[in-house]
């Protein structure tokens, strides 16, 4: 047994007092969890500590908190690990998650934020018509792909730390968008385009994410919500050519064109092109509003008119060739580490997979095609 000091953030909105820190010493094996520490403090010192938990096995998603400033599951964080990431005073800080109102102490209002956003994205399968007599038949690979987003346990850790949501509470957010990919990536779903169109027309939809990687870092289940958001954008822009209200698709196209032409980014063109070109009605007010900054930049010689208007760079032939080859492919070639794994950890697994294939009769669909049913 060892002693650990826990500093718990306490707040009871109904009491009207300000939040405060409350320190407790607990006595537990170092491999025990922060959750067990909190429960010991509650059971032995102060029964009024508010914490939500259920399974204690990292699968129910109830005990999301911030430990030393980082979001995660209290039951999935060992006390010794938490101590190692604690400050110099050796005190483990436990706080409620962010971006959600506090009900009491470590319990946040998941209904008010997280669940509302999940409901926002139609979180169920809209089956293809006609409904088959038996199961829908899909390929094995297509299901491996969506298992990453299916691994979500709805703990809210990604929502807690989403930096876009911090400034734009209406942002649909990482958990709900990962859930969207779960259906957009599912070949059985009939509403891929509608789902994406809906989230492209919402100003706080797929193009409101800043690529900050916070959700990838936060997720205790490896869902990598930001990666799923980028895939939603790829499908929305490339496959369905959805023109969104944030100019996200236009910005992406302008950026790609800019690099194809110049090799390195020519910023002076990017801004107007992202709004549809220098003379596009949407670009004009944007350009006028940025005039004062442009003037200051010119005055400070941060940029010169010549550099801004002319194109000093040209893409080398090698770069142009890459665009020709890759953009000329019939199908997008997407290497997915989640599905493929690395050579190092795949060593020997090919033989194992083969052995399984031969030992198990392959599922044969009624129409004679091979595949697994889901």
């Amino acid at each position: 047994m060892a002693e650990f000091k826990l500093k718990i953030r306490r707040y009871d909105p109904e009491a009207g007092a300000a939040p405060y820190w409350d320190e407790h010493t607990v006595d537990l094996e170092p491999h025990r969890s922060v959750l067990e520490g909190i429960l010991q403090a509650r059971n032995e010192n102060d029964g009024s500590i508010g914490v939500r938990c259920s399974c204690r096995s990292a699968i129910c998603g109830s005990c999301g908190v911030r430990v030393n400033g980082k979001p995660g599951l209290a039951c999935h964080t060992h006390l010794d690990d938490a101590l190692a990431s604690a400050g110099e005073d050796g005190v483990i800080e436990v706080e409620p998650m962010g971006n959600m109102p506090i009900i009491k102490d470590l319990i946040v209002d998941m209904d008010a934020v997280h669940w509302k956003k999940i409901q926002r994205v139609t979180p169920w399968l809209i089956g293809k018509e006609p409904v088959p007599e038996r199961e829908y038949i899909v390929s094995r690979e297509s299901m491996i792909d969506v298992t990453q987003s299916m691994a979500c346990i709805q703990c809210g850790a990604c929502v807690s730390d989403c930096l876009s949501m911090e400034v734009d509470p209406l942002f649909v957010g990482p958990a709900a968008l990962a859930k969207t990919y779960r259906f957009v990536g599912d070949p059985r779903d009939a509403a891929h385009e509608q789902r994406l169109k809906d989230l492209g027309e919402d100003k706080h939809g797929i193009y409101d994410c800043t690529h900050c990687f916070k959700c990838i870092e936060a997720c205790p289940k490896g869902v990598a919500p930001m990666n799923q958001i980028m895939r939603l954008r790829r499908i929305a822009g490339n496959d369905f050519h959805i023109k969104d209200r944030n100019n996200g698709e236009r910005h992406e196209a302008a950026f790609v064109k800019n690099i194809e032409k110049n090799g390195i980014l020519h910023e002076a063109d990017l801004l107007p092109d992202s709004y549809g070109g220098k003379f596009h009605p949407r670009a004009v007010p944007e350009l006028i509003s940025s005039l004062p900054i442009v003037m200051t930049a010119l005055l400070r010689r941060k940029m010169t008119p010549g550099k801004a208007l002319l194109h000093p760079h040209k893409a080398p032939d090698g770069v142009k060739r890459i665009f020709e080859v890759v953009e000329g492919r019939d199908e997008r070639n997407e290497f997915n580490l989640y599905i493929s794994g690395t050579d190092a950890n795949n060593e020997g697994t090919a033989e194992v997979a083969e052995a399984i294939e031969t030992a198990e009769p392959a599922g044969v669909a009624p129409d004679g095609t091979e595949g697994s049913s889901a």
Partner: protein
Amino acid sequence: MKVAYWPGCVSRGFTAELHGSMAAVAPMLNIELVELDRASCCGAGVIAEHSQELADTLNARTFALAQQEITQGADLMMNICSTCQGAQSECQQRLDASAEYRAQVNETLSDEGLEYQDGIINKNFLWVLVEDIGLDKLKTLVRNPLTDLRVGPFYGCYIVRPTDRLDINRAQPRDEYLGQVIEALGGTVIDYAGSHKCCGFPIITMNKAASLEQAGRHLGDATDADADCLVTPCPLCHLNLDLQQPMAAKQVGRELNMPVLHLPQLVGLALGLSPKELGLQHHIVKPTSVIDWSQAVVGGVGGW
């Protein structure tokens, strides 16, 4: 040391003072820069959003060009942009993961006679400072310690997350390096809420209000923590924090007057270069507090 040097796009465009200050500081740190002038944009995450293979191939080409320099005596590839670091590391992770995928990408590069071999070392200047030059060595080079200069670190998302891809761990706390460098240069590190958050730049054309709100908040938080200036290894963060600062101030409804320095500029000041040699006069927010400090220390830099 000799490095295959990738300056990035913005450091030669809207933040030309970054490229210039790096060139000024490098000889003082005994770094020989071999510029990869035929390389292309890293894609900044946007090209990958359009097509992963396109981003991977463009960066494999940059890596292959760098490897040509490495075979001719360069120690590693160095960049001066957090976003390049993150976007290139992401592509490298995929390229290094699979020989089959790498062969596919190399097939496209073969027209130009280039080939990427897995395992390139590509480090931001910040990492090179701490890991290859070393803080002890850096301390011995300081001529004007940044005494009493209160500096807030601003990392940029791409250089601190995801931690596993960027090899950030307890033995290698790359997400604390800016603080270590500021201290080694004799300055005071300011702890404020925004140091590891997003500057908002990636959505400046998509949701301007949210983007500027992010920049404005971090600048405001640093102001409230009494910082004299911020320092960043990311030119894209610099665009939102400096170039857009007047707009960010309007967005958050408070006055902001926070100078933002590029990392080589801060290092250069401590190594004895003048603000003018480091291009500080090109910033939108005049770095008055920093200049006052350097004049007080140097006793009149003048001429700017």
